[in-house]
Every structure is written in C-alpha cells, then in structure tokens.
C-alpha cells in the first residue's frame, strides 16, 4: 500500500504543480456541456435522455485527454524505466496510476456536475447520479490506464487509443447513460440493474488490468 500511495502522491503532486491535464480536461468538459446544452435546448421533451448522453460524452472525452497520457508521459520523460526498475509489482504500478487517474477525473467531475445541473436543470447532484458517475469513472480510469500502457510506445497513440478503448467501454457507457437517464426521468428502481452491470465491468477491468499491466509495460 505504501508503494501505491507513493505513486498516487507523486502524480497528484505533479498535477497540482503543472496542471498539465486537469486544466485541459476541465476546459473540454465545460465546453462540451455548454455547447450541447444549446443544441439540446430545442428538444425539451427529450432533455433527460439527451442530458445523460451529453454528460457522458463530456466525461468520456475528458477522461481520454487525461488518462490516455498517464503512461505515455512517463515513457516520454524516460521515467518509466525508473518505475520498472523499482521493486514494485506491475499490478501495484497499475493501481497507483489508476488511483491517480481516477482522482483527476473526480476533481473534474466535482466542478463539472454543478455546472451541468445548473445549465440543464437536471438533478445531476443527486447521490444516485454521483454514484453512477463514480462507477463509470472507475471503469474509464481502469481501461484508460491499461490502454495508455498498451499504446504508450506507439507513435500514433493518440489515434490508436480511442480506437482500442471505445469498443471495450461500450458496455459501461451504455449502462452509465441508461442509469443516469433513469434517475433524471425519476425511475430510480430501474437504475440499480445498470449500476450492478457497471460495477461488474469495473471489477473485470480492474482485475484484468492488475494482472496484465506488468507484462505490457516491460520491454
């Protein structure tokens, strides 16, 4: 735990000082939320469904900006070898990078959700919505961190990462959009099965990433 904590502490400290990713993630999220708000304003009767979609588009792309480069930055700087040469296991390295990525998404969501709630006039600060957003973010951060490692050594990684990541994220995204729309529409009972589905995929992604991460970052 000490090593995983050290990795998270290091990434949080670097991000707090450089604001390399969170600034871009936040700006992108707010731009998407504001732009889609104007677009969907014309169809008020579908506001709940469209709002849920807009929220998850914003979270998904903001996540890609930040998480997609978490390993690539280490490789570009040459510091990835330093992490590989430390006696930390691949799985623990994954958990450290995953933890830091998840924290950065949560920070962005903490700012974006109140803005979304105000603009769309939807209950985005409902505890159930916050839980759904958290469950979706866990899956996004887990897969994003894994595929950041897969693509970090490839020159065209910015193109390849979404191509690899999006198809695998589809189950979580569908569940997240449906669960969020259900809460917005007031159907709280129908939400639970979607949340369970998301948590199931979260668990699968975390376990697979934990087991495979070490092999992916080695030469």
């Amino acid at each position, binding site marked *: 735990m000490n090593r995983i904590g050290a*990795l998270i502490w290091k990434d949080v400290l670097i991000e707090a000082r450089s604001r390399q990713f969170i600034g871009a993630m936040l700006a992108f999220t707010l731009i998407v939320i504001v732009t889609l708000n104007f677009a969907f304003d014309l169809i008020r009767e579908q506001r709940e469904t469209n709002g849920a979609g807009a929220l998850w588009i914003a979270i998904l792309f903001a996540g890609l900006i930040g998480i997609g480069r978490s390993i690539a930055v280490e490789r570009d*700087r*040459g510091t990835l070898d330093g992490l590989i*040469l*430390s006696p930390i296991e691949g799985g623990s390295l994954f958990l450290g990078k995953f933890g830091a990525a998840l924290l950065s998404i949560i920070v962005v969501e903490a700012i974006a959700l109140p803005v979304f709630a105000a603009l769309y006039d939807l209950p985005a600060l409902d505890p159930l919505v916050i839980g759904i957003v958290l469950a979706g973010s866990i899956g996004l951060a887990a897969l994003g961190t894994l595929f950041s490692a897969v693509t970090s050594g490839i020159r065209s990684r910015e193109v390849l990462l979404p191509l690899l990541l999006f198809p695998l994220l589809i189950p979580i995204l569908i569940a997240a959009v449906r669960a969020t729309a259900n809460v917005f529409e007031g159907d709280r009972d129908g939400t639970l099965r979607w949340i369970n589905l998301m948590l199931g995929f979260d668990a699968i992604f975390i376990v697979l990433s934990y087991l495979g991460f070490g092999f992916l970052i080695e*030469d």
Partner: protein
Amino acid sequence: MVVQMELISKRYGRQAALRSVDFSGDAGTVVALLGANGAGKTTLLRIIATLTQQDRGRYHAFGVEAWPRRRSIRARLGYVGHRPFVYPELTCAENLHFFARLFELDDAVLVVDRALQHAGLADRAERPAISLSRGLLQRLDLARATLHNPGLLVLDEPDTGLDVAGRDLLRQLMRERAETGALVIFTSHALDFAIEASNRIVTLVNGEVAADEPSAAVTLSGLEATIHGLREAVSVA
C-alpha cells in the same frame, strides 16, 4: 560473481546490437565498458539492468537467472540511464523520498538527507528538479540510483554534464560503492576518466568484446586504437 553473461546476443530488427558477448563482473570491482557510438554498450547495460531481454545467451545476476527473477534483482540494482529518472516538478528531496518509498527503505528521512548531503545538493533540497543544471540533475539521479545501497550499480555515461568537481564526486561514489562490495559498471566517452575511475576495462567493437584488461595495463593511445582501429578494420572487412 555478481554478473555472469555467456554468449549474449541481441538484435533490433536486422541490426545486430550484440554478438555472442561473454561478460562477468565480481563484487568490489569498477568496470568501464567502452566503445564507439553504436558498439552495443547501452544495449549490454540495459540487459544487465533487466530492462531489455537478450535474444540468446545466458545471463545470471547474484547467482540466479536474471530475466525470470528480475523483480528480486531490481531491488538490488541501481541504474542511471541517458535521461534522469527524476521528476522535474518535484523538489530534489521529494524525488528521493518518492523512490525511498518505492524501495520501502527504513529511516527514509535520514537516508534521503544523507544522500542529498553526499551529492552536494543539501542546500538545494527544496528546489524543484527543473531548476537544476544538467550536472546537478545528474548528481540527483546518481543519489537516486544509490539510495537503496545496491549491490550492482549500472551507469550509462554518468559523467555527462558533470564538471570537474562532479566527476571527482562520481569517481569517489563509484569507489565507495565498490569498497562496500558492489559491482559498478559504467560507460563513458571520456577515456582518461574511464581509465582513472575503473579497475577493469572492457571494450566493445561492433557488438563484440574486443578487449578485456585491467585498467592499470591500459594506455590512452592503446585504448583509442582498440576502439577506433578495430572498428575500422571490421568495417573494411
């Protein structure tokens, strides 16, 4: 033997980086690995450091086969590469504390303070690494690599960017590490420095070991002839 390698070969595509290299190193020794650009020095160091796996040959470190047991070997290994493994946004002290936590060192505060003192960076402990010059950054990276008291220290051109005082510090550090029972292997393009700082010199030419002799028996002109003369002879052939 800390390091024992037999018939190590490594290719990158069609290019052979190492051809059937035999290399060994004992505790308490400082070995300079010399050669022209592209001779295979960095590839050999990366294999020794378990960062790269050889295509062929046997490599044992600390008495065990290296690649399958690389995790345990890495805990006893210090490595300085071409680029420092330190984070520019963190201070010197924070960088060392981070690696102290990764290696789960006892008395991390004491160990880090001592490492900063030893590297001549005590007065810059709270400065971000990005503010350091190339030479001071190299000192910080050397402090990072030796923080956990490694039994095998692998240094790829560690004298790059160092001034005279920095080179003296590096020479002293390598000697101290060897005196405490470590094997130190380094590469350098400064041949005079390599002769002074090492006990033994291994010269690579076109991915093969061309010479392996005690430093005391080596002259600067002889070394230059081995590195450059043999290389030209091979390329002509």
